[in-house]
């Protein structure tokens, strides 16, 4: 990818994470890592978000919230699973209230492993998500949507 064609807005939701990945997601926005230099900002509003960052595995109570946030986001949209819990359930996989990774509920485009995922890998994941966003945009144009 040579250039960023869009300044994407992020929506962050903690599905059932231990906070570790959440504070690393916030860390990406602060001076040391500063993803705002790519034009990326964190928004609290799903209706304006392009990329959904989800941390933690899905449990029975957050399942509906995750589905709702996903359905409220406009097309094209990309989902990034941040941290090993969001990818597979991770260390909590055997817990009785964990259904597994985010992909058991909504389609996931980019997986960022790590416990806790480091800001560098989260940024890498978001940059990969930008590429997916471009592809989805192109596919939508082709379909005439």
């Amino acid at each position, binding site marked *: 990818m040579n250039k960023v064609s869009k300044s994407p807005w992020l929506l*962050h*939701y*903690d599905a*059932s*994470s*231990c*906070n*570790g*990945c*959440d*504070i*690393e*997601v*916030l*860390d990406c926005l*602060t*001076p*040391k890592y500063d993803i705002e230099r790519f034009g990326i900002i964190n*928004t*609290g*509003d*799903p209706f304006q978000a392009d990329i959904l960052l989800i941390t*933690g*595995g899905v*449990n029975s*109570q*957050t399942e509906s*919230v995750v589905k709702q*946030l996903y359905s409220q986001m406009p097309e094209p949209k990309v989902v990034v699973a941040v941290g090993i819990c969001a990818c597979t359930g991770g*260390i*909590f996989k*055997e*817990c*009785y*209230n*964990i259904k597994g990774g985010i992909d058991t509920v909504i389609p996931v485009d980019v997986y960022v492993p790590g*416990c*806790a995922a*480091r800001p560098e890998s989260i940024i890498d994941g978001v940059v990969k998500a930008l590429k997916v966003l471009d592809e989805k945009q192109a596919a939508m144009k082709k379909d005439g949507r």
Partner: protein
Amino acid sequence: MAKRSIVPFGPQHPVLPEPVHLDLVLEDETVVGAIPSIGYVHRGLEKLVEKRDFKQYPYVAERICGICSCGHGLGYCMAVEEIMNIQVPERADYLRTIWVEMSRIHSHLLWLGLLADAMGFESLFMESWRLREKILDMFDETTGGRIIHSVNQVGGVQRDMDSAMLNDILRAIKDIESQLKPVINTFLQDYTVQSRLKGAGVLSREDAIALGAVGPMLRASGEPYDVRMLGYGAYKDLSVEPIISTDCDSYARCEVRLKELLQSFDLIREAIGKIPEGSINVSVKGNPAGEYFVRIEQPRGEAIYYVKANGTKYLDRFRLRTPTTSNIPPMVEMLKGCQLADVPILILTIDPCVSCTER
């Protein structure tokens, strides 16, 4: 009487990084009641104690919460060590204390940033989190992890710090301390901050005690109670004085946490000055049998760890009462009578840690 309406707050909310839900009962703009509902981050990891053996479990205990992870590992290990009558080497006690105090600095700086963000004071948020990075770098250097450290084990700690690392920590906290001065000034003197915090969310000393507030929340209401005074770990050799304020409002809670930052710098300096040489862990033989309660002071307040063992390598029960659990009833009380616009700040002043609370 104005018409009552109910406004849902959360679980996904711009101010909170974590999901917590409140139903706010409003009369016009004034909150007359708040009904919290929790369970969005419940994983059920206390139950995992039956599937992981007691030496593996610190690994799970540290993942109860990413902010106070070092303390959770410590609390669990201390409880098992007490059951098994293990005497942890002095040096391990000191190393644990240094790491726990470093987590306190990291947690309080994180909270200060979130508070500034909730007020819309973006530059102050950035500045607090910029300073926090220096502590995370030190964690990275000494433990290999920024957030989850995995240093505690039953019988001691897994890693040692050499003198170069200890010097780096001293240099980092000196650096943070000098750069923190303008931040502290802004939090305590700035007109904007004062107008949002002063007089907001008053919790009297009697209410705080009756409703079971802990940690900075209780100390900001004027009650000098700090579990570190019990002298667990290396605190027996260090000078810990509870930091209190008698204003009882949000400003007082902010002030207490700012002063605790300075206290933690001093404690780390003192601990590094006194740290003895020697081994960092003892080998653990056999399985625990019995039960024990441990209390430690987390950045958010007193946390209680209960471990029940049955003589096999799998424990019967692990139970944790977290500071946020105790602070929710005072928070609900505090919200009554406040303005809707103040709700996010008042929720933040208890420093909620939802993933600890719900586990």
